[in-house]
């Protein structure tokens, strides 16, 4: 597993998405982690110092794994460009069909038309 800086991570993630267009999946995992072993954590805690937690981001296509870690300062910057990468590559998802929308709109109108006359009749 390679721990990268956030920007190279995004560029690697981009090429990972491009490699997996024909076949295969890409997994992206977010986890809160201190990036330290249990022993190291216990040491730090026994000394009285707090353990610093960061957001660990890992991505894999099943063959290669890359990762990066984000501090509380980094995450806003990262999440914006991460969203851009996702938006650029997730275009295989289905869009809502407009025909259906029109049909439902028409049926709504019809229903509305039916409803409207009744209050007039009552007056």
């Amino acid at each position, binding site marked *: 597993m390679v721990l990268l800086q956030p*920007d190279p991570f*995004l*560029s690697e993630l*981009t*090429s990972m*998405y*491009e490699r*997996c*267009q*024909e*076949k*295969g*999946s*890409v*997994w*992206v*995992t*977010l*986890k*809160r982690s201190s990036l330290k072993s249990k022993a190291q954590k216990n040491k730090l805690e026994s000394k009285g110092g707090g353990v610093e*937690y*960061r*957001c*660990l981001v890992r991505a894999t296509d099943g063959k290669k794994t890359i990762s990066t870690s*984000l*501090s*509380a300062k*980094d*995450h*806003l*910057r*990262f*999440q*914006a*460009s*991460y*969203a*851009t*990468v*996702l*938006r*650029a*590559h*997730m*275009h*295989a*998802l*289905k*869009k*809502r069909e407009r025909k259906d929308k029109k049909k439902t709109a028409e049926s709504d109108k019809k229903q509305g038309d039916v409803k409207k006359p009744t209050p007039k009749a009552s007056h």
Partner: protein
Amino acid sequence: MVYIASWDEFVERSVQLFRANPQTSRYVMKYRHCDGKLVLKVTDNRECLKFKTDQAQDAKKMEKLNNIFFTLMARGPDADISEVSGKEQVEPQPSKKVQQFHLRKFLGYLDSSLPYHSMLSCFQDTNMQ
């Protein structure tokens, strides 16, 4: 382990799950381009919540959930997520500026490596707005 059908329920339960067990919980997003499928999973190794979709509109919802989890994981489980989980229109202007600044920086970075046409067009769209 069953897929949760309702998005709101999935978000609520997954945030609860993370807050109950921030050390062991993880959030996984799996995207399969060839089948056009997106699966979201949140688990603490005891309980597992999953959501599956093939709709483009759910990708936008996922973006919001991403932001919620980035905030929770980078700032801690007690972080305030009301700002991120709320509607996008409520977002203050400075964040947009930061985003644009970063986009430009990112663009420069990409220019120096490979020509990602799809991506560049996407950037142009965002700049137009």
